[in-house]
Structures are given as structure tokens and as C-alpha cells.
């Protein structure tokens, strides 16, 4: 599966790694919903680090759409919450 880290690029990940990544992803969602900024930043860092470690980077000119997308390392809880708001990324 292809995952994009916003601002960094794409990596190709073996499906076997998703159990581990899903745990971090669920944690991240819970921290975002509870408003735990510190926890959110820590978990996001761990998630991104895991993706970079387990994945193979795709060349910049690759034409592969990403199936999963992760916020950039410096994204704040507020920004991500806004992205995932009721309107999604495209209002209206």
C-alpha cells in the first residue's frame, strides 16, 4: 500500500505492517478527539517514524495515488482537526 506523508513524499508499505501502524493511528485519533496536544504530537512522531522505517520511498516522478495520507510532522492538533472537519478538505 502507498502512504503519503504530507510535505515529505510517498512510501510503499507492506500490508503486514498495518497492524502496528493501525494501533498508532487509533491512538492518534483518540488523542485528537480528547484534545491531548502533547500525546498527539508524540504519537504522530512515532507513526511517521514507523512509516519511514518500514516503507520504501517512491521516486518523486512516480504516478501512484496514495491510499493513505498522514499529516506533516509539524502539523498541530488544531490543523488536523480542521482538515478532518465535517466539510472535509473540500468545503461544500
Amino acid at each position, binding site marked *: 500500500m502507498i502512504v503519503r506523508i504530507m510535505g515529505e513524499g510517498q512510501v510503499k508499505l507492506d500490508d503486514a505492517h*498495518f497492524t502496528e501502524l493501525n494501533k498508532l493511528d487509533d491512538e492518534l485519533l483518540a488523542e485528537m478527539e480528547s484534545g491531548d496536544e502533547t500525546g498527539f504530537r508524540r504519537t504522530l512522531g512515532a507513526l511517521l517514524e514507523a512509516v519511514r522505517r518500514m516503507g520504501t520511498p517512491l521516486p518523486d516522478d512516480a504516478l501512484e495515488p496514495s491510499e493513505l495520507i*498522514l*499529516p*506533516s510532522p509539524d502539523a498541530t492538533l488544531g490543523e*488536523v482537526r480542521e482538515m478532518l472537519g465535517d466539510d472535509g*478538505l473540500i468545503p461544500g
Partner: protein
Amino acid sequence: MSDGVMKRMGMIFRAKANKALDRAEDPRETLDYSYQKQLELLQKVRRGVADVATSRKRLELQLNQLQGQSAKLEDQGRKALALGREDLAREALTRRSALQQQVTDLEAQHQTLQGEEEKLTLASQRLQAKVDAFRTKKETIKATYTAAQAQTRIGEAFSGISEEMGDVGMAIQRAEDKTAQLQARAGAIDELMASGALDDPSGMAKDDITAELDRLSGGSDVELELQRMKAELSGGSSDGQQAIESGQNGAAQSSPQQDRPRFDKQ
């Protein structure tokens, strides 16, 4: 997989990617450029049609000229024979035979050129239809794109996000445009190849043996022609006989310079 941050963001991005919008590159420009290239190709084909038509007309003029000369030589041969100058008649008919060969060659070339012209004209018409269809499609796509762009510009506040999906959307758009452009160009060239318009219409050169055979057959044609004319004069009408007699008399009475038929130099 759970409905976590990764999945939700992915879903939202896919929805945006479907709109195929990007800010860095305008697909309308690519479409216009592609159309411009097609027009240039069409122009080239039209120029080709005009060139072939010009060559064909030039050949027609040459043919008319040669046929005129040929008729004149035949007439001179006839007169020479009537005057009892078989040597001159033979010379005239030999020259005429050479001219006739040129006429035959030119007629073959003319036919080839006419065929080429017809094929090119057809190819040009087909290409024109394709370019027209592309223009209509291009304008539709441009109008749709402009409307979609105006609609989504409202959401441009999410600048960081549009940038993220921009590189994917842009690359796909570029690839699609490029493909369409290449297909259009390949289609036009296929069209020309299929019609045979790009084939070389030459092949008129002769080898030594063919030239020698032509010369020999040309010679025998002259003999046959002479025989025919002789038969025409002797066994034919009394006018012919009288012409020979009066010619002989005339030759005896007047100076040879006055009565000898004059031949145009080739």
C-alpha cells in the same frame, strides 16, 4: 482497518483528486498547445497537396508540348516521304519515336501523381475532421475546467492541502494530456500511411538493358511506320501518288534548298 486519521485523510484526498485540479499547471494551455500542433500538421498536409497538384500541372504542360512536337514530326516525315526523301522521313520518325517514349513515361508519372493527389486530399479531409472534433472537445473540457476551478477556488484557504495533492493531480493531468496529444499525432500519421500518401512515387529510372531494348524497339517502330506510310502512298489514294510525282518534279526543277523540308532542332 479502523477509520483512523490515515484512512479518513486518504478518503478526503481521493475525493479531491477526482476533481483533477491543480494550481501550478493549467490544462487549458496544454489543450490549446495540442490543438496548435494539430493545426500545424494539417497545414503541412495541405501544403503537400498543393505541391503535388503543381507538379501534376507542370507535367500536363510538358505532355502537351511533347505531343505537339510529335505531331509536327509525323507531318514532316509524311512530307519528306512524299518528296521522295526517305532518309529525312526516317530521321523525323526516329525523333518522333524518341518523343513518344518520353510521352509514355510522362503519362505514367502523371497517373502516379494524380493518384497521390487524390490520396493526400482524402487524408487532408479526414485530418481536418479530426482536428475539428478535437477543437469542440477541447472547448468543452476548458469550459468544464473553468467552472470547476471557480467552484473550488472558494476552498483555496486550505493551501497546504491543495499543495499536497497537487503533485499527484498535476502529474496525472499532465500524463493524460500528453497521451491525448500523442494519440492525435499518431492518428494523423497513421492516416497518411494508410492512404499511401507518404510512399515514394518515384521509380522512373531505367537500366542500360531497358534503354537498349527501347532503342531497338524504337528503331523497329520507325521501320513499321515507314512501311505503313509507303503502303499509304503507293497503294492508297491517287492524291498520294500525285504528290510524290509532283514532289519529284519539283525537286528536279527547283533548287533543293527551297523544297527540302526543314526540321526543327531538338
